[in-house]
């Protein structure tokens, strides 16, 4: 067991003032808790189990990402796989992720420094399948980027790793980076109930991934 500290960053710019009140809805919390297999032991001790609607704590911030992943498509409640990834992304993620845990990952996170990994997924035979979210996921990413990270990790949870270090060899590999790009691009294009900042961040993050995480550049930006 590790101990860590955090300082609360600006709640407007992270999108938590926009999405926090939406996730604070008991029917949604009940559903998400089961659908993503949260466990009390992974979200107590300061991570928010005792105050789920507190926007400064990790659990609320994770649920805001899940709310964004669930309800941003203008076609909701359709989650058809014949639609785009904004439509079926949540369906895929909740079915692929075995359990969603919060961990420190780094000893501290504050507005002056928030280093380290954002998330991690392990899977495979004779492995305890799980997805872990670390402090930078909660405190150094806006809500729409958190949703994109959950899509990325769900692709791993489905058994698809990267095929060139932490990168994908190509767009055609159809790996976690492509899925994250597609979700972010569709969110920016037709995501509902969101802000200019969330959309623009999504577009820029999608292009950063295209320009950085494919061994063979796909030749386009979004």
């Amino acid at each position, binding site marked *: *067991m*590790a*101990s*860590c*500290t955090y300082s*609360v960053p*600006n709640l*407007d*710019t992270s*999108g938590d003032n*926009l999405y926090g009140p939406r996730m604070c809805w008991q029917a*949604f919390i009940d*559903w998400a808790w089961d*659908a993503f297999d949260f466990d009390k*032991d*992974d979200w*107590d*001790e*300061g991570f928010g189990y005792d105050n789920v609607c507190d926007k400064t704590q*990790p659990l609320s911030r994770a649920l805001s990402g899940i709310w964004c992943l669930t309800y941003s498509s203008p076609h909701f*409640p359709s989650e058809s*796989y014949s639609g785009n*990834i904004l439509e*079926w992304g*949540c*369906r895929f993620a909740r*079915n692929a992720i075995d359990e969603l845990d919060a*961990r*420190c*990952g780094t000893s501290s*996170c*504050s*507005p*002056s420094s928030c280093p*380290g*990994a*954002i998330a*991690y997924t392990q*899977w495979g035979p004779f492995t305890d399948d799980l997805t872990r979210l670390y402090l*930078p996921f909660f*405190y150094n990413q*806006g809500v729409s980027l958190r949703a994109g990270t959950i899509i*990325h990790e769900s692709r*791993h949870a489905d058994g698809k*790793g990267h095929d060139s*270090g932490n990168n994908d060899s190509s767009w055609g590999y*159809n790996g976690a980076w492509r899925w994250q790009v597609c979700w972010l*691009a569709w969110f920016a294009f037709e995501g509902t109930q*969101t*802000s*200019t*900042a969330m959309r623009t961040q999504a577009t*820029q993050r999608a292009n*950063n991934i295209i*320009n*950085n995480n494919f061994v063979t*550049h796909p030749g*386009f*930006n*979004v």
Partner: protein
Amino acid sequence: MPCQNETSKGGGDSLDLHLDSRPFDLSPTGWLLGQAVRYLNTADKEGEFAYTQVVEILRRCSEDLLETLTRVFRSMKSGDSALRWNLLYVLGDAGNEKAAEFLVRVALQPLPDAREDLGCETERDMEMLVSTMAVHALQKVARRHPEVSDYILRIVSEKPARPILIEAVKVASELGMKDKVRELLSKEEHWMLEIRQARIQEVFAEPEREDGKERGFTPPKSGSLYTAPRSVCCTRKEK
């Protein structure tokens, strides 16, 4: 392979909260800046309109905008990337030609080292996003103040990390400086000039699944989609 990172295996971790300072309370311009980032993060037309109004006031009345913004920006250092990204967005809309130098410095700020052992996404990616916003903010400033357009070429000539370089190449091309950029790039980098804007329909992921199987844990409907009758009150007074 998965992106690697390990913490303790048994039980949960524990976390302590510390409250942060209020960076926008230092001056009238700081307060206006705070209002701008607040409205930039609202999801309605009223918020968008209020944002344009605040930006207009910042443009006309805040001589100390750059000074105030850089003070807040520097206090963040390498955390709270979302706040720094938002500050740059506002500077792109409200800043004058004096902002160009600062935006170039942010765009060229060295990124944390790429460490494969840490995981797929790290703080390097968040710093990359901040630098990307600096490039696009500079584009917006250059559209209003064409005399600073050449600052984009300074970014290209410094050859930052590839994603930042590509953003600068795109922006310079959109500002009509494609030929100058071609001269600054090596032959091996000329492909960056040919990156096209994809139509959204081209950007699709193959789910490798079909409808008809178990959908599992269907999300609750909300708002107008929720058509069941609502209970207005929960108790009835007995006489």
